[in-house]
Every structure is written in structure tokens, then in C-alpha cells.
């Protein structure tokens, strides 16, 4: 058990190390020297060129040898210093990202967890039921293969324009000040519903298909046949199949997290939802490299953390791992 976690955590630490190194290396070694091109954008203002030039030299430590630059990058990182945003000058990148983070999480977490719970049930329910399967499967396939943001666009168009039920931009009414009043919470949920819904639907399709295939596979397994021969009820057999099939789905959850985060980035753009994805695109459009790099690191960190959580969850639900590693089997 300990060995299992040590191995996993080691990989995650290495991954983080790798990501930070990429984050450090790309602006320095990319062809076309992004720092110069950034400075040249201000060439009409010779004063600011000087300020920027000295700022970059200082913050990137460009006058120092490479290994020292690399060490300083890590030192700054541990202090939570990711540089200063150019587009929202002079706010520090960390502050901007931390402000956006809750918005991303509040859409992502419920969408992932609910779709996992409901999608798996749905998939298990339709498996091996001819008529139902024939109707449900094409729907699931369509949901899972549509780009996240496109489903968001379609939902926004149908429920925001054709039938104006929901607002389609922002996280709350611009006239409102965030507070803990019922009025604000209601307005917040009202804005939250469509971005959440579009992520939820795409994910629902992929879980349902995965579960359906797994159940069919499990129903073919010897233990199912044996139960059938013993005269067990279909319900009982399916229940056993479900418990076996959920394990690969949890592994799938860990693999999917990266894709889901990427999907939420694009969804936030559609709804102008002020999460990390929205900030990321703003920074790309404004060539705000510090902010792009900061978002990258935060996304990686979040994905690593959730992978670790899934690993822990896996040990909790699968007694076999627990037993093998603690030497009971």
C-alpha cells in the first residue's frame, strides 16, 4: 500500500518537475525569441521599451547564466511568485489566477462528479437491452464526440436566444456585487447552469459508453455465466457486473481529467465565464506570457492533485490493491 503510493507520488513529483522545466524553457529556447518580439510591440514608446527591457532582464534574470536562471525560477515559484501580468498590469499573476480559480472549480467539480455517477448508471442500465441500446447509443456517441465548446454554443443558442431562459454570459449579473445574499446565490446558479450543463452532457456520453461496453464484457465473463447457471436473478448478476466494471471507469476518470479541464477552458470562453480558461484566452490574445505560463502551471498542478485523489479513491474501493500491497494475499 505504502509502496503503491510512493510510486504514484514519485511520478507526480517528476511530472511537476517536468512541467515547471517546460514552463521555464519554452520562452527561453523557442525560435523567434518571444521576449524580443514582446518588447518590439512597444517600440513606438521608447520610454516603455526601456522599462520593459530592464523589467524582463531583472525578472527573467537574463544577464545571469542559465543554471542560475533555472534555480531562481524555482525559488520564485516556491514563494508563489509567477511574475506580473502585462495585460492586467500591475497585478501579480498568482492573485489573478487565485481569483479565477473558484469559478473554474464550481463548474468542473459538479460536472465531473455528477456525470460520473449518472453516466455510469445510465450505461449499465442500457447495456444488453436491445431496443433501448439502439436508441441510447447513438445519443451517447453524439454527445461524447461533440467538442465541449460546440455543445456549449448550441445550448447557449437554444436556451439563451431561441427560448430566452438562461443568461449566456458572465458568472453573475454585472449590476450585482458578489455577496452571500440569496438573491446573489440564485443569480449565480442561474448563470452557472448552462456552462455546467454543457460539460455535464459531453461527459455523460463518454461515461455511459464506457460503462455499457464494460458491462457487456463482464456479462460474458465466466462468473456471470456461472451465476446464470446457478439460477441467480438478472438483477444480481448485473449488480456484480457493475461492481467489477466500475473499477476501470475510475481509472478512466484519472485519464479523463486532463481532457475535461481542457474542455472546460473552451466552455468558459463560450459563456465568458471568468474562470482560468477565460483568463488563459485573454492572456493569449494579449500575448501576456507570464499569465499564460501561470495558468499552465496551475492547470498541471490541479490535474496532478486530482489524479492523486483518484488514486486514493481507487484504493478505497478496490480491496485487491489494498491487500496485495499490505501482503495479505
Amino acid at each position: 500500500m505504502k509502496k503503491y503510493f510512493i510510486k504514484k507520488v514519485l511520478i507526480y513529483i517528476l511530472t511537476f518537475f517536468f512541467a515547471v522545466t517546460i514552463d521555464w524553457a519554452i520562452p527561453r529556447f523557442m525560435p523567434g525569441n518571444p521576449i524580443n518580439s514582446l518588447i518590439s510591440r512597444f517600440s513606438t514608446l521608447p520610454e516603455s521599451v526601456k522599462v520593459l527591457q530592464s523589467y524582463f532582464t531583472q525578472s527573467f534574470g537574463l544577464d545571469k547564466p542559465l543554471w542560475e536562471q533555472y534555480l531562481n525560477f524555482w525559488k520564485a515559484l516556491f514563494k508563489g511568485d509567477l511574475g506580473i501580468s502585462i495585460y492586467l498590469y500591475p497585478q501579480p499573476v498568482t492573485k489573478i489566477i487565485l481569483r479565477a480559480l473558484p469559478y473554474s472549480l464550481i463548474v468542473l467539480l459538479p460536472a465531473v462528479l455528477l456525470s460520473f455517477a449518472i453516466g455510469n448508471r445510465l450505461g449499465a442500465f442500457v447495456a444488453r437491452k436491445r431496443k433501448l441500446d439502439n436508441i441510447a447509443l447513438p445519443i451517447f456517441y453524439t454527445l461524447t464526440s461533440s467538442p465541449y465548446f460546440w455543445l456549449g454554443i448550441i445550448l447557449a443558442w437554444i436556451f439563451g436566444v431561441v427560448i430566452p431562459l438562461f443568461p449566456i454570459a458572465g458568472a453573475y449579473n454585472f449590476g450585482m456585487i458578489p455577496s452571500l445574499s440569496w438573491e446573489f446565490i440564485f443569480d449565480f446558479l442561474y448563470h452557472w447552469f448552462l456552462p455546467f450543463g454543457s460539460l455535464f452532457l459531453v461527459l455523460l456520453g463518454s461515461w455511459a459508453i464506457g460503462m455499457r461496453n464494460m458491462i457487456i464484457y463482464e456479462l460474458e465473463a465466466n462468473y456471470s455465466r456461472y451465476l446464470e447457471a446457478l439460477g441467480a436473478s438478472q438483477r444480481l448478476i448485473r449488480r456484480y457486473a457493475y461492481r467489477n466494471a466500475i473499477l476501470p471507469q475510475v481509472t478512466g476518470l484519472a485519464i479523463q481529467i486532463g481532457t475535461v479541464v481542457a474542455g472546460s477552458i473552451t466552455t468558459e470562453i463560450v459563456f465568458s465565464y471568468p474562470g482560468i480558461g477565460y483568463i488563459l484566452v485573454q492572456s493569449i490574445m494579449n500575448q501576456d506570457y507570464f499569465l499564460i505560463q501561470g495558468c499552465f502551471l496551475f492547470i498541471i498542478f490541479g490535474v496532478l492533485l486530482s489524479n492523486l485523489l483518484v488514486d486514493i479513491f481507487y484504493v478505497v474501493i478496490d480491496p485487491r490493491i489494498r491487500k496485495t500491497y499490505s501482503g495479505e494475499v
Partner: protein
Amino acid sequence: MNQKEFLHFFVKNKKVVFAICVYIVLITLAIIGPYISPYKDPLEFVGPGYQPPCKEYWLGTNTFGQDIFTQLVYGLRSSLLVGLSGGTLATVLGLFIGFVAGYKGGWFDEILMMFTNILLVIPTLALLIIIAAYLPYRGIFIESLIIGFTGWPWIARAVRSQTLSLKTREFVDLARITARGPIKIIFGEIMPNMMSYVFMVFIIEFGVAIHSATGLDFIGLGPTRGISLGIMLQQATLWNAIQLGMWWWIITPGAIITLMVATLYVMNAGLDEVFNPKLREM
């Protein structure tokens, strides 16, 4: 399974036949589309903006008066190209690394798999963003190159585990006794036994590459010149096509992507039935 038997199940499988038909239509559209369209340049301003589909503009025009049908067929071309080249590159890389890691074993395997696991955790789109954001000029070729170079890890891992189980079989041992080199064993003995799997992996990766490219284009990191389905949707969102109710601008590009990827999934499920007799009875 001999060739005749395979062909029999291949042609009889409805899912596979459906998928092939859809792809024949799409590829034909991508090839001849630009010739049957009345307008040559997808970026040309051909008429008034805000036109819904009509006889003159088959799928309408966007805000600037560009023809959506023309953009669509060119976008379809680039999507298929990115899917094909990005998917092929990722599959070839994944195969190569999986074979080498699985067959060689030892510390070589450890290091390769560690690297694979690291790349597997990092979200591909985040990696693509950080690379693409720093490229001043981007084209379809570069786009598929970076998609290919970031898409291989899961293939490598799957191929490695298959190689591990295949390399202990008798026929591989026999080949080794006859002093055949590792490259010959990998390509002559191990790979032919995995061909069905490799093909299915390629199909999935084809879809993944299309999705990645669309996401990248939508974020604004697509090709700096030219048009793609993702760029169409990006512009539509940027110019408030949703609020203006220009459904013809937002539905068709996304529907084509969805159709392309969904068909690949259906093809995959069909091929699974062809190769795997256990699933066939349904």
C-alpha cells in the same frame, strides 16, 4: 482469421459499412468541394453579411460576408489532414516506443515508461497551448506535428503491455533461437499479431487529433493564415453569432466535427465486433 473470413464480417458489419460510407462522402466533399463552390477563396468577401442559407449562398454568409460553404469545405480539408497526419505521427511514435520498451525491458523500459507516464498526466491541450503560444507563425503542418508529438503516450503504454505478453510466446522464442534480430522479430512476429489493435488505436487517435486541433483553433492558437472548422467557430463566438441568432454559422462546423469523430467511434465499435467474435452475436 483468414482474409476471406475477415472480409465477410467486415462487409457484413453494419457499423463498419456505415462509417466507411460517411467517410467516403466527407472525403469526396473535401476534395471536390472547393471546385463545386461558386467562390474560390474561403476568406474572400463575396456578398452581404448576415445572409441565412439561400440559393446564392448555400449555407449562408457570416458577419463579414464570407461564404460559409466555401469555408466549410476548406475547413473539412484541414481537419482531415490534421487528423490523418497528427494521428499517424502519434500512432507511429506510440508503436515504436511501446515496442522498444516492451521488447527490450530492463532500465530502458523503466525510463521510457516513466517519461510516458509523465506525459500522460499532463493535459495535452495545456501542453499544446504553451508550445503554440510561443510560435509566431503556425500552419496546419506545425499543428499536426505538435499534436502528434503530444498524443502518443497512451498508445505507447497499451502497445508495451501487449508486447510484454506476446514476447513470451513460443513463436517469438523460436524466432529468437534462429538468431533473428530484434527489429525483425518486432516487425515480423509481434506486430502482425497486433495489427487489428494498431488499426483501432489509429482510428481513435485520428479523432483525438481532430478534437485537439479544433480546441486549439477555438482558443485562437490555430493556423495564423487560412481557415479551419475551429477557426470558424472561434470567429462566430467572437462576433456574437449566438446572440445574433446566426445558427447557420455555428451549427454546421461543429456538426461536421461531431459527425467525423462520432463516425470514428462507430467504426471502432464495429471493428471491435469484427475482430472479437465474443461481441459479434449481438
